[in-house]
């Protein structure tokens, strides 16, 4: 059942464009956000919380927007690669500084970097478009211009495929020697040094991975919405990622995707039916999860369907 149910869920999501097409864009956005949350989840496995990872989400989306503005014929694949490359470089640069710190200092420094970038996006209007952001025109796909609905359908499947592939990769990485070394940051950094390792280098490898994951999510979100605004880097977006990670199951890769889907559903339906109090409903929802299911949605799943978790997965 522990393998069958996720497989059925994936099949159900894959069938959404045919069975419930009105949910297709919503799920694209949810999965893009879920990929970004995976990045936050990676850091949680080292016991670190970032309140600024929306920075990489925004950097990649803006990188895509700038590329398309400069070169309107840039292919979708190139746009994706450029966005992720932007996040990778930003992750490396910011990471070189923040991996020296732990706990609240790490959290706050990430927040500070994201807010500096947000201010830059807001204030340098002539360059970034300010609060209006930058438009991301639909790029050609393998040289062919395709219509909006076809593009949205393609983007949905690309997002789903990337979400699954990156979840697989992240799980493998967390279960690899390097991933295990990264996870020891949470439990014993002193011993790590006596093993001849630099905790900063180990931390940096995970940090860059987390930035890249956020970057993939950001560029997909930008392409799906057709516009990128400073809101992508706003601290609330970073907090939302942490919120979703906890909701899905802190430290769980599968939980990041599941949490993002449930979060978006609750958010959309709560805002549709509960007007101005949807944030309150979301808060209440998280409160219930923390109080009654501290392992998040994935923890609940494992409680009902006990079985062996994958090595890279955290079941606590």
């Amino acid at each position, binding site marked *: 059942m522990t393998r069958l149910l996720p497989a059925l869920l994936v099949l159900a999501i894959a069938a959404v464009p045919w069975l419930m097409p009105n949910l297709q864009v919503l799920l694209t956005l949810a999965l893009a956000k879920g990929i970004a949350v995976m990045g936050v989840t990676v850091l949680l496995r080292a016991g670190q919380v970032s309140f600024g990872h929306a920075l990489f989400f925004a950097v990649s989306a803006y990188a895509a927007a700038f590329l398309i503005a400069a070169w309107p014929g840039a292919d979708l694949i190139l746009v994706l690669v450029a966005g992720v490359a932007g996040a990778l470089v930003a992750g490396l640069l910011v990471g070189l500084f923040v991996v020296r710190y732990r706990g609240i200092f790490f959290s706050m420094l990430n927040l500070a970097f994201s807010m500096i970038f947000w201010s830059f996006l807001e204030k340098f209007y002539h360059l970034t478009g300010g609060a209006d952001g930058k438009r991301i025109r639909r790029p050609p796909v393998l040289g062919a211009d395709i219509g909006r609905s076809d593009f949205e359908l393609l983007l949905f499947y690309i997002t789903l495929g990337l979400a699954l592939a990156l979840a697989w*990769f992240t799980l*493998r*990485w967390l*279960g*690899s*020697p*390097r*991933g*295990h*070394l990264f*996870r*020891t940051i*949470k*439990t*014993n950094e*002193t*011993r*790590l*040094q*006596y*093993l*001849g*390792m*630099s905790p900063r280098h180990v931390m940096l490898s995970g940090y860059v991975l987390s930035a890249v994951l956020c970057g993939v999510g950001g560029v997909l979100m930008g392409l799906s919405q057709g516009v990128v605004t400073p809101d992508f880097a706003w601290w609330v977006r970073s907090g939302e990622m942490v919120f979703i990670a906890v909701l899905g199951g802190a430290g769980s890769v599968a939980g990041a995707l599941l949490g993002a889907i449930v979060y978006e559903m609750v958010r959309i339906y709560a805002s549709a039916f509960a007007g101005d109090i949807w944030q309150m409903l979301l808060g209440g929802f998280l409160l219930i999860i923390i109080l009654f299911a501290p392992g998040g949605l994935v923890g609940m799943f494992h409680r009902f369907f006990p079985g062996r978790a994958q*090595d890279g997965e955290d079941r606590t």
Partner: protein
Amino acid sequence: MTTPHLLEARNLEIRFGGVVAANDVSLHVNRGQNMAIIGPNGAGKTTFLNICTGWLKPTRGQVLLEGRDITRLSPRDIARRGVARAFQIPQLFTEHTALENLLIAVAARDRLSNPLRDLHRIPERAEMMHMLEMVNCADVAHRQVDELSEGQRKLIDIAIALALKPRLLLMDEPTSGVASSEKFAVMDILVRALHEAQVTSVFVEHDMAIVERYADEVAVWAAGDVRLRGAPAEVLAHPDVIRDVIGEVV
């Protein structure tokens, strides 16, 4: 030309406020021996280990490893040069099993970085299982380390250090916290493992029975200085040691 000592401390000095933990201390360790460092609490024994592993920097003096100055190197660089450390309070990765603790050590030793290879499938797994057998912990290989007894945790801590294939192992009170009935068993296992791995060791110890039975040489540390060194029988029978060290411990 004479071969340099495996480890040599020259004129070490370090102070913590008014407390002198090492005052012009010189000490060397020969290859293949198990040296015990004894002395009253606060004499500076652990500080000496911390200096030798790069955790603390002396205000004066040098630490040489096979004639090369390692005084200013980081713990990471010193570990890379073959000096391993076991701790008074075992320093383990508490969210991992005993075997995983060793596999992580070997991943660090060999710089394994393939992101798609499972830690449990690395070729060195058999070597680490053998290491666990050497320290008599093979039966708890798949248990979380925080579920183990203190004696087992001590042995896993030492096994992690041995997994690095060090030339020198520095141990801080390897039997502290271990039940009296288990102490000799733990040391038997430890000394056998050291012998099999051909590792030189230095251990700080308060239990004189352990020192007498397992050390090849004893150095007596008192008030930041090495007061006496020699064979265990000779040193432990010295009137100053009986008065200042053994008397206090008893």
